[in-house]
């Protein structure tokens, strides 16, 4: 075997893009062993630490769903997703990006959406609903791409409209003027375009003059909260579960008894970007428990240990081979004895419905917004 010269320039470049350091990793392998997508995380870290390019930059980099399960498990408390992000930036610089993710990037560039769809059809989901579009309001409801275009996921946004209307919330949406939050752009590491996108979004938000932004997807939340402040200021951002939970506290939301009567067993899956990124664990549970008749059952892995659906970090756009953590997660939900698997993220909903079909389970996968919408005001479910 000929010896390989370590590439310290490369190592320094990764460290520079990783908000600090990669060096305090003592290579215990906990990250690799905990990764639901079988990414060889430790080897990637090793490649970054001492400068072994082919260990660090490979296809495996794009299998990562940035779910942060490795970070929760890391005994050294290392921000591993920052390292992944830094490496992806380097990889993107070398034009080494999976084709599907690259076309998603092009779609954002051309149509303002990573999800399949046309700029001009972005607002269609709200047709027939009583919604202020592009007008000043107290709250701005931000959908992001998947909930705007995917017919299954549009139901989440529509459910929120129903809840807000039934409870008298003054809100507006951006309609066709809404653009992708740029989560995928960030995940790929295209910082230049991200800046352009973020600046334009911040401008559009100003037009509504809202007190806060309420998001449908925790992924938009993540990029708004963690990345946008570099490019401008924006009002406080809340995930809708946080907002609705606040309404519960003030007695503004009182869900009725659920269909299916007493003891309806519901389990809750913590989306990575809501839980591990946002630290929001209790609000969604509180919402579910506020529904008369609902019995909340927990899966073995919950809260900060929740298994990822595989959708984050660009995972929704990449063909995943082998590991399908969503299938295992659905099985865990079934084991918990639940009839309904609730979650609060569009990606999770799609992945788990797919998972339920594959494992042949009749468990119902619902976004919390969909569950609550059927139980407020006069609206039907």
């Amino acid at each position: 075997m000929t010896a390989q010269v370590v590439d310290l320039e490369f190592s320094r470049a990764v460290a520079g893009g990783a908000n600090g350091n990669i060096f305090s990793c003592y290579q215990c392998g906990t990250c690799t062993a905990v990764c639901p997508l079988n990414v060889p995380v430790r080897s990637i870290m090793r490649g970054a630490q001492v400068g072994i390019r082919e260990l660090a930059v490979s296809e495996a980099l794009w299998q990562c769903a940035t779910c942060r399960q490795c970070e929760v498990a890391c005994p050294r408390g290392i921000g591993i997703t920052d390292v992944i992000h830094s490496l992806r930036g380097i990889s993107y610089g070398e034009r080494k990006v999976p084709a599907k993710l690259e076309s998603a990037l092009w779609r954002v560039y051309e149509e303002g959406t990573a999800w399949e769809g046309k700029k001009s059809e972005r607002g269609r989901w709200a047709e027939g609903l009583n919604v202020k579009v592009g007008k000043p309001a107290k709250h701005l409801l931000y959908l992001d791409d998947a909930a705007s275009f995917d017919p299954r996921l549009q139901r989440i946004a529509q459910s929120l409209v129903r809840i807000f209307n039934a409870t008298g919330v003054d809100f507006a949406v951006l309609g066709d003027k809404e653009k992708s939050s740029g989560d995928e752009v960030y995940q790929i590491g295209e910082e230049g375009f991200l800046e352009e996108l973020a600046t334009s979004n911040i401008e559009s938000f100003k037009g509504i003059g809202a007190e806060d932004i309420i998001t449908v997807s925790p992924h938009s939340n993540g990029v708004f909260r963690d990345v946008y402040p570099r490019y401008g200021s924006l009002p406080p951002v809340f995930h809708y579960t946080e907002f609705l939970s606040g309404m519960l506290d003030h007695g503004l939301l009182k869900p009725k008894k659920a269909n299916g009567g007493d003891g309806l067993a519901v389990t809750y899956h913590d989306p990575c970007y809501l839980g591990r990124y946002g630290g929001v664990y209790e609000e969604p549970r509180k919402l579910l428990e506020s529904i008369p008749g609902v019995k909340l059952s927990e899966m073995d892995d919950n809260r900060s240990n929740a298994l990822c659906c595989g959708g984050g970090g660009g995972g929704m756009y990449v063909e995943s081979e082998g590991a399908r953590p969503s299938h295992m997660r659905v099985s865990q939900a079934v084991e918990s004895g639940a009839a309904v698997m609730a979650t609060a993220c569009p990606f999770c909903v799609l992945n788990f419905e797919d998972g339920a079909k594959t494992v042949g389970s009749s468990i119902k996968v619902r976004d919390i917004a969909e569950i609550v919408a059927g139980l407020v005001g006069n609206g039907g479910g």
Partner: protein
Amino acid sequence: MSEDRILIIGGGIAGIQGALDAANAGAKVTLVERSPTVGGKMSTLDKNFPTLDCSICIESPKMSEVALNPNVELLTMAEVQGIEGEAGSFKVLIKQDARYVTDACTRCAECVNVCPIIVKNEFDYGMAARKAIYTPIEQSVPGPYVIDTQNCLNDPPNLLPCSRCTDVCGPNAIDFNMKARLLERDVASVIVATGFDLLDPTLLTEFGYGKHPDVLTSMELERLLQASGPSMGEIVRPSDGKHPEKVLFVLCAGSRDERLVKYCSRICCMYSIKEAYQLKDHGIKEVDVAYMDIRAFGKGFDEFYDRTRASGVRFMRGRPAKVSPNGSAIRVSFENTEDGAARIDEDYGMVVLATAAIPSKGTEALARLLGIGLGPDGFFASADRDGGFNTSTKEGIFLAGCSTGPKDIPDSVIEAGAAVAKALTYVKTRSWPVPAEVVQISTEGEPRIGVFVCHCGSNIAGVIDVKAVMDFARTLPNVVHVQDQMYSCGASTLNDISGVIRDKKINRVVVSACSPKTHYPTFQGSLNRAGLNPYLLDMANIRNMDSWVHKEDREGALQKAKDMVKMSVLRAMNMKALQTMKFPVTQTALVVGGGVAGIVAATNLAKQGFETHLVEREEALGGVLNSMSEIAPLGIESKALLGALIEELHESGAKIHWSTQVETITGFVGSYDVHLTDGTNFMAGAVVVATGAEPYVPTEFDYGRNPNVVTSLELEGMIDKVTGKNVSIISCVGSRNGASGCSRFCCQTMINQALRLKEKGNEVNVLYKDIRTFSRFGEEEYEKAGEAGVRFYQYPQGSVPQDAIRMADGKLTVKDELSGKELELQSDLTVLNVGLTRRKKQ
């Protein structure tokens, strides 16, 4: 009198050893222990590493002695409640809870049989039950049983819904009217030896404790291994009582972990290796150990690690991410970092967690009460200038053992001695009470021999048929009494021997047990207290020389035991009473070697008022310390430290002989005739050899010929003048190579030097086998070095650096275990991290 007493808080091995050392030096000691027995963690262990000595067998005689020594006041179930005054004249308030059982207790266990209350036995770490009246362990000291009124049906002074125990107690030893006592003691100095606790394993959510009954802590396994433990030494799964076929040990369970305990718990590597070895010995087929670095730093530790590997235990580098039930098995997910880069899911029958050692419960409160500081790790802070951990932040209060961080037994014992040496400097008067006269038993006439056969738990009885040995002993001439004992060296059994000697007028004693080397003085005590001349004792070592070595041949072992007992009995018949003579011990000490150990020893002796001579071969004191600039990990400046120590030495009044060697030493114990090369002659009662060691001089890596290769000690002198950009440090040069073991201090030095180089802008590579930063604050500095950007490369475990690393043209080539790749590193300066070897010129 406040000037003659030392208070020792904590009755584990450090406290016990401290009490005995101080008492034998003539100080009065009050030993305060909060549990009902002394002994601490050591008394609950099965065997000690790396010697595989029976733990309780080593400790039990000391426990007994501490109860019998007339200079020691033993207060169990007691806690210090207040302290006033200052060094030299403290006044302490101690509260001792009621035991409710008097010294009349004969430990017959009738009360235990009738007590209706069953609770978990904390001395078995919950692996077994006890009653509300109980004895913590077989060898408990003091011996009387104890009533735990938290669980007893009675709630004194409110009596008596239940009187089952009092009804059956023959000697009427149970006294529910006993009250807690408040005691005041005047003491000159204090030693805190409060030990450690273990992290609650349920906090380690990923490791499955509490979710599967066969996930155990190391201490729980230790109780299973213990012959007198809950499973009588059988390794069984709590779930089904069967032997596991495959067991995994998980190291660093909570240690070296940002979320729980940042430091290294120091003892877990070795006790886990020891337990793994024992399981293999118990016939368990597959035994695996998941580790990150093996920290086998002590004397004989690496050799034991090698022996354990050779026994078939599999060591896998990697930290499990998840341990969870998989049906009746336990599923473990981990990555073996030396073997591929993927998750492995493997099923085990038992998983053992080496849980982190943490400050013992109440440490914070005690620190407040005593007015002493705590370190950032939660253990007591030390104020020693020399990097030791003996001196608290308040004058007159000293620290020993695990109260300043996790430590193994030898280190705790050494620290206890060191703390006593310091505490004694405040003791003004010393005395050695003479035990009360006992009516002497006549040794004239026909020998009347008593034979005591010890089971030693299952150490002896597990192999040798004790009853057959007894039957045989009865047939031997002049034997008038034969008796078996579970542990002959327990405090109550020692008393029992004395009683039998008196009652049966025995005038020769044979103890058929273990080694006279360790236990002869213990049993002599029984003879002394019975009034029998202590030289009329013989021991048959049927354990070390028989049951331990002939485990596979029970018939042969029994025959040998009979032969050994017969020889002992015949020897005993011919024994004559010997009289001891007293010679004065010359009150002068000689310390050979003026390194840091010699300086401190001489200072302490002189401060205690002894005439002391310190002999140093070189012109200057300080030894190896002279070639260090900074001492890791505390960043102590060597020169300043050495200056301060030498100043203190001068102040102490010790006589220093520079450039001098010992010419001859003749004479005998307590009275040595010493001739030095400077012409001085004197008599010395005690000699301390502190001649140190010398740094290894490498022959590896072209050292001595290549100017870009230096030793770590040479780097100390030039660290600010290093010109090359890339510096590589190679660990274990001349250490851990089969011929010499781990040099113990060098990893810490290496990390410290790497950090200093990095901080001044160098690129630093560390090429290592294991990172052994076990010292207090050492792991924290290792982490800091990583954060600063020092790069670490691991060369293979089984190799030595000169085989694993090639050096040519300012480049090093190493097979990096962590990437599986052969890597080439730029190295403008290569530092050989050398350990210490024995001095060639002695």
